[in-house]
C-alpha cells in the first residue's frame, strides 16, 4: 500500500516537474522588442500648455482677468495728447487720473502679474508658495503614476522575456572592464587561458563577493600562468567598481559571471 503511494507520489512529482520545465518552451517565444515609449510632438509657443492644478487654474484665470482689467485701465499717454489742452478736467476725470498715477507709481505690482503666464517663473509670479506647491504636487503625482505605470510595463517585459543583459548594457560593461584590465603579456597563448569569475554585486554596482570558478587551477603545477591571469582579472574588476550595470533590474544582474580570455589578443 505504502509502496504504491510512494510510487504514485514520485510519479506525480515527476509529471509536475516535467510540466514546469517544458511548458515555457512550448509557449511561442515573443519577439523581444524594447518597450514602446510614446512621444508627443508639440510645437514650441510663447505660452505654456502645461495643465495646472484646478486651484492654480482658478488663480491664473483670476490673474488673467485682472491683467485684462489693468491693461484697459492703463490708457496710453498718446491718447491723452489727443485731448484738447484747454479742456477743463471734470471731477470724474480727476479720479481717473489719480487712479492712473497710482498705477504708474507701482508698476512692479502689475508687471509680475502679467508674467504669470510663464510656468518656469511661477515661484516669482506667485508669492504664495502654497500655490506653487499645489501645482508641483499635482505634477509630481502625475509623474509618479506614469513612472509606476512604465516600471510595471518594463519590468513585466524584462521578467518575461529577457534573462540576460541587453546588447548595449553588455557592451557598456565590457568596454568598462577592457579599460581596467592590464593583460599580463607573458602568458602562453597556446594554452587554455579562460578565467571565469563569479561576482555578487550590490545595487550600486560595487562588488559584494568575487569568486574564481576554476580555483583549483591556481595551484596546479605547470599552471602558474593561470594564477597570474586570474589575479589580473580580479584586479581589473576591483579597479573598475562600481561596475556599469543597468539602473534597474537588480535581481537580474545581482549575480554575474565574467569570462576573461586574452587568447585572441595575445595571438595578435
Amino acid at each position: 500500500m505504502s509502496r504504491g503511494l510512494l510510487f504514485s507520489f514520485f510519479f506525480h512529482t515527476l509529471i509536475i516537474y516535467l510540466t514546469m520545465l517544458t511548458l515555457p518552451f512550448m509557449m511561442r517565444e515573443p519577439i523581444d522588442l524594447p518597450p514602446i515609449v510614446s512621444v508627443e510632438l508639440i510645437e514650441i509657443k510663447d505660452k505654456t500648455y502645461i495643465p495646472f492644478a484646478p486651484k492654480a487654474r482658478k488663480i491664473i484665470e483670476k490673474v488673467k482677468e485682472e491683467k485684462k482689467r489693468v491693461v484697459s485701465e492703463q490708457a496710453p499717454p498718446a491718447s491723452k495728447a489727443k485731448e484738447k489742452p484747454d479742456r477743463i478736467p471734470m471731477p470724474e476725470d480727476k479720479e481717473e487720473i489719480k487712479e492712473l498715477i497710482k498705477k504708474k507709481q507701482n508698476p512692479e505690482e502689475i508687471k509680475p502679474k502679467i508674467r504669470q503666464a510663464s510656468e518656469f517663473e511661477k515661484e516669482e509670479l506667485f508669492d504664495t508658495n502654497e500655490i506653487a506647491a499645489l501645482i508641483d504636487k499635482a505634477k509630481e503625482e502625475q509623474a509618479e503614476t506614469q513612472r509606476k505605470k512604465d516600471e510595471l510595463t518594463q519590468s513585466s517585459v524584462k521578467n518575461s522575456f529577457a534573462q540576460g543583459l541587453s546588447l548595449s548594457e553588455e557592451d557598456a560593461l565590457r568596454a568598462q572592464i577592457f579599460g581596467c584590465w592590464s593583460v599580463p603579456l607573458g602568458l602562453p597563448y597556446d594554452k587554455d587561458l579562460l578565467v571565469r569569475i563569479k561576482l555578487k554585486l550590490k545595487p550600486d554596482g560595487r562588488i559584494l563577493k568575487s569568486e574564481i570558478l576554476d580555483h583549483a587551477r591556481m595551484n596546479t603545477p605547470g599552471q602558474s600562468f593561470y594564477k597570474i591571469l586570474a589575479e589580473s582579472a580580479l584586479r581589473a574588476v576591483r579597479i573598475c567598481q562600481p561596475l556599469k550595470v543597468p539602473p534597474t533590474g537588480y535581481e537580474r544582474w545581482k549575480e554575474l559571471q565574467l569570462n576573461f580570455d586574452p587568447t585572441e589578443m595575445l595571438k595578435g
Partner: protein
Amino acid sequence: MKKILLILSLFLFSYKNAYGLITVDITRGNLDPLPIAVSPLHVDPKSEKLSIFETVKLGGEISKIVERNFKSTGLFNPLKKDAFVQKPDIAHLKPRFEDWRLIKAQALVTGKILIKDKKLKVEFRLWDLTAAKEMVALSFTTTPNNWRRVAHIISDKIYERLTGESGYFDTRIAYVSETGPKNQRIKKLAIMDQDGFNTKYLTLGNELVLTPRFNPTNQLVTYLSYFKNMPRVYLLDIETGIQEVVGAFPGMTFAPRFSPDGKKIIMSFAKDGNSDIYSMDLENRVVEQITKHPSIDTSPSYSPDGKYITFNSDRSGLQQIYVMRSDGTQVKRITHGAGLYGTPVWSPRGDLIAFTKVRKGRFYIGVMRSDGSGERLLTENFYQEAPSWSPNGRVLIFYRETKSDSKGKGFSAKLWSIDITGYNERRLKTETDASDPSWSSLLSK
C-alpha cells in the same frame, strides 16, 4: 522515502538553475603600463658602515635601479616618490592599502636592508594593492659589492610575478666597443650589465674583434678575431681571461654561436670562395660539416631544443633564410619576400626567428615564425643589424649606425632595444660606440 526526497530536492535545485547566470565575455584588455610604487628600501639602523657606499643611501639606490628596470620594459609605470604616503619601514610591515590606492598604484614594492658581519641582507615584498594582499616575499644574503645585482634580481622576481614570464634584468651584454675615426676604428671586446653599468673590456684593441656570443652558462664568450691576419673563431673564459683559437681549420672561420647545451660551437668555414656550416664539439674537438653546397652558407643559429638550425644562404641566387635539421638534412627555405634576409637568430622560446632584412637600401629588424610565416618588421633605419634575444624572448637588442658625411664625420654606432610587439624602442647607454651585441642568459637561475 529518503531517496525520493533526495531526488525531489535535486529536481527542484536543477529547476532553480534552469535559467543560467548572466555571463559576459571579456576578450580584450589594455596594454597600458601597470602603475607600480617602489618604496625606498628601509635601511636597518643597526647596519654596519662600509667604505664602498653610503649605507644610509643604499635603500634608495636599490629602489632607483628597480624603477629604472621597470621603466625600460614599457610594461610598468613607476610612480613618483613625492606622492608616496607611508614611510618605508612602516610600509614594509603593513601597507595602508587604501592610501596607496589613492595615488593610483596597483602594486607596491617594499623592502629592508641589513648589513651585518660584512654581509648584505636584503628582503623585499610585493603587494597587490587592489586585493590588499602580499604577492611575493623573498630575502637574499650576499656580499655588499653585489648590491646592484640584488636590485636586478628583485626586479626579475617582481617582473615574473606580475607578467607570468621570466625577467631579463640580472643579465649581461657582450658587445664590440668602438672608438676612433671611421677608417681607423679600434674595436675591443666589452661586457656590461644590461642597464649599461659595470663595463669591462676583455681585449686590448690590438686586433679587430667581431660577433661575440655567450655560452649558456655565461662563463665563455666565442667571437671572431684575427690570428696571423686570418679571421678565426676564438673562445674566451671571462673568469680566467684565457683565450684560444677554436679548431685547426685551414682557412677563415666566422659567425660562431654556441649550441643550447653549450657543448658545441657552430660556425662558418670559408675555403676557395665557398663557405659551409661546421660544428665543433668542445669536449673531444671533433669537427662535423653540416652543410655542403657551392654557395655561401653562414650565420647559423640553433633552435632552443637543439634539433634544428637556421642559417642564411645565397643558394637561390639571393641571400635568404633556411631551416634544416641539426644534422644538415631537410633543408627548407623559409623566406620568400622581396629583399635580402640575413642574421637569423632563434628565439629562446622557440616560436620566433629574428632577422635583418635589406630592401631598397633600407635595413629592417623583424621577426617571423620558424616556418617563415607571420613576418613582422619591427624597426627600419639607414643601417642596423645583428639582433640578439633577451633570455625571455620578449626584447631584441641590435646595433644601429648613423650616416657619416663625406669627411667621415657624424658616424656613430649605438645599441638599441625593441620589444617584439614593435613598441618601446630604446637606446642603451654604453661608454663608447658599440656594435654586435649579445645578450646573456639569466645569471641567477
